[in-house]
């Protein structure tokens, strides 16, 4: 009898599974963005989600759950039912730096999620106040090393992208500048423009307008290729700095245990969005880098998460950075 019931249940399950494959999605899909509306991750999620809605035939609704460097929103999304109706936009901080920064983290970036794929990265730019006495990156690095203790590096708060990438920069270059924390990129930039602080590293979308406006200067962009948004800024490699290539990537994840067919539909919708001319243009206008070919899809993202956790943990631990 017991056996019969379990067979019946399995059969029902199969039917239900088949039904879900045909009909998913039947209602709007919530994409949790773990940051406040208006920031780079939110903007990328909205641009990509807008096109995914068209492929999926259901609205992708953005829900901003901000807090604790993005880990509040990701913790909540990780605990959601793995039915494909709750997905999330994770990023370099929540799925790379967080394990080092938050000892009590309630999720494991590499094992608590089913990866969907990379959405877009925003390159990191090394910027300094406009009258910094160095003509190019080499002179800048030399000046930094000579004036180590006198230099002030700004960042947007422990756990922010500018903080993690800044810490990485100081460890690659081998300097220990004084760190000045701000609540967000805006106020940090303001003090950089007025020369209160000397330099910082941040996402291109945050600093490009001030660079083109001439109120701050850029020494290098930390990507293999130059960005069309800032064609005059050399890459770190071109300018003579090895080992500092970093981008604030944003990627779509689902909670662990998504049905294979649901996951496949989401992967497909994301791929279509990233191949759409209009969506690409909007991402590129932001200075974003769009993943191509092998960089797309769930497997590439899984590998990236594992390598990012391995990359950030020792750097941030060595710097003694803890967020709680």
């Amino acid at each position, binding site marked *: 009898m017991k056996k019969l019931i379990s067979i019946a249940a399995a059969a029902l399950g199969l039917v239900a599974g088949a039904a879900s494959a045909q009909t998913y999605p039947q209602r709007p899909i919530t994409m949790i963005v773990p940051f*406040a*509306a*208006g*920031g*780079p991750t*939110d*903007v990328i999620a*909205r*641009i990509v989600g*807008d096109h995914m809605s068209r492929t999926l035939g259901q609205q992708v609704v*953005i*829900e*901003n*759950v*901000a*807090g*604790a460097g993005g880990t*509040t929103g990701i913790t909540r999304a990780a605990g959601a039912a793995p039915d494909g109706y709750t997905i999330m936009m994770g990023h370099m901080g929540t799925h790379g730096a967080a394990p080092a*920064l938050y000892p009590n983290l309630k999720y494991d970036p590499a094992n608590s999620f089913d990866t969907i794929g990379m959405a877009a990265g925003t390159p990191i730019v090394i910027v300094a106040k406009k009258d910094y006495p160095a003509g190019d990156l080499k002179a800048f690095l030399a000046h930094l090393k000579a004036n180590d203790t006198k230099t*002030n590096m700004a960042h947007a*708060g*422990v*756990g922010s992208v500018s903080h993690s990438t800044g810490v990485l920069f100081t460890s690659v270059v081998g300097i220990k500048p*004084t*760190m*000045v*924390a*701000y*609540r*967000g990129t*805006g*106020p940090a*930039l*303001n*003090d950089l*423009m*007025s020369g*209160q*602080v000397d330099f910082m590293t941040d996402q291109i*979308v945050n600093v*490009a*307008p*001030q660079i*083109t*406006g*001439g*109120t701050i200067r850029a020494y290098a962009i930390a990507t293999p290729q130059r960005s069309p948004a800032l064609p005059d800024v050399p890459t770190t490699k071109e300018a003579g700095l090895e080992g500092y290539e970093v981008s604030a990537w944003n990627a779509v994840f689902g909670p662990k245990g998504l049905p294979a067919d649901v996951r496949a539909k989401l992967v497909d919708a994301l791929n279509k969005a990233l191949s759409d001319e209009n969506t690409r*243009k*909007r991402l590129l*206008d*932001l200075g974003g880098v769009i993943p191509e070919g092998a960089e797309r899809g769930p497997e590439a993202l899984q590998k990236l998460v594992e390598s990012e956790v391995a990359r950030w943990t020792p750097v941030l631990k060595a710097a003694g*950075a*803890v*967020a*709680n």
Partner: protein
Amino acid sequence: MGDLIANLGLGFGTVFGLIPVDIPGLGVVPIPLNILLCFVGCLVGTLVGVLPGVGPVASIAMLLPITFKFDPTGALIMLAGIYYGAQYGGSTTAILVNIPGEATSVVTTLDGHQMARRGRAGVALGIAAIGSFFAGCVATVFIAAVGAPLTRLALIFGPAEYFSLMVMGLVFAVVLARGSILRAIAMILVGILFSTVGTDLETGQERMTFGMQFLSDGIDFAVLAMGLFGVAEILRNLDHTEVRDVVKQAIGRLLPSMQDMKDSAKPILRGTFIGGILGILPGNGAVLGPFASYTIEKKLAKDPRRFGQGAIEGVAGPESANNAGAQTSFIPLLTLGIPPNAVMALMVGAMTIHGIVPGPQVMTKNPSLFWGMIASMWVGNLMLLIINLPMIGLWVRLLKVPYRLMFPAILMFCSIGIYSINSLPTDVFFIGLFGLIGYALIKFGFEPAPLLLGFVLGKLMEENLRRALIISRGDMMTFIERPVSAVLLVIAIVMLALALLPSIRKSREEVFVDD
């Protein structure tokens, strides 16, 4: 001057221009789309401003996807309309139900709500609308004329200057609170203490969170304000059996009398000036505007005791200041590309979604967007006056709704509103908790307004103090060596010294008075 007129001409041309729109069934028809969007923005803004708790941040975030369909100029005109529309609407709630929706309307509750309690709700709303309209008009011209050069002011203000500015603000609050000066200081200190809860900015260590994750980002201003004012006010109203006095009295005239206008004229002028200047400062310098205006009006008044008892100057000045500040806070956004507060940060997001990178080059690269937005502010202010004045009767009639029906609605809107900001259930619990604390404070004769001020200024003060000292490598002289900072500190010390002179002490006035 010629430039100014040409620029404003371009702006108004953009606002009133006809744009061909494909209307289903009618084909492509040229309609004045931007002006319609401006109207929709102002209307939505007024509504969300009036509903307690549903603030401009939440509503702009919710409406962001809709703007995908419009061109960026129209979209931003609409979003800006929501922002300053909400400032108008927020005053309505502050006056009628004593809930400050934003830090800038805390001061309006002091005399505005007292006016409502004395049957002058209509006049209070009327003068708030007129003052805001005047401030909005002046601020528009101000932005157009001197916006760009004035951004240099924003760059003079570093951490040391901000710290001194906040010290001055708190000294004003202490010096001018009379009678229960000790209680006022106590409340300010409690406010500062509350502001230190959460993850420490410099070290990343958690402070006073008791290991609870939802406290790691500190206490939200909206949660604190809604609990201390909104929920506490409801509890207080419920504990005495009489229904509210407002309801029993005549609503009174809606439009202010000649005498009211005469009393308000100068406060409106001064409020506009102060609010406009402080609004330019990034880092939310605008929160000081209404408060500074209130302090000054009280200082200048012949009979300062009327303040806190429903003085019309106490509404006219701060309301003008907060509207002027709301508009001039677009200056750092449009010229430096730096958002001074959460709403402006959302506007940056809205711009980037539309492919416009905010910053110094917007003015030259997208002149029709820049000047169109500025012109739309003036048009929007006119619309708000037209929307609001006839609607005052409607809002005031809300007061006639029996309180047993009204308070559940207010509680519901507060809960929904607070949940919509961060989607955190704990925020809803917390407005209840702060409501109880606020009720206890009122019962023991402590006023919640100084607490809220301490909370708002405390955070900025601590962070800027530490930042300034880190940059100066621990040298306290930095606050004196920097001229702007030194001047602000001297003003603070003079105010304090004056307060300590006994003769002046007698005439010290009350800034914060609850009944």
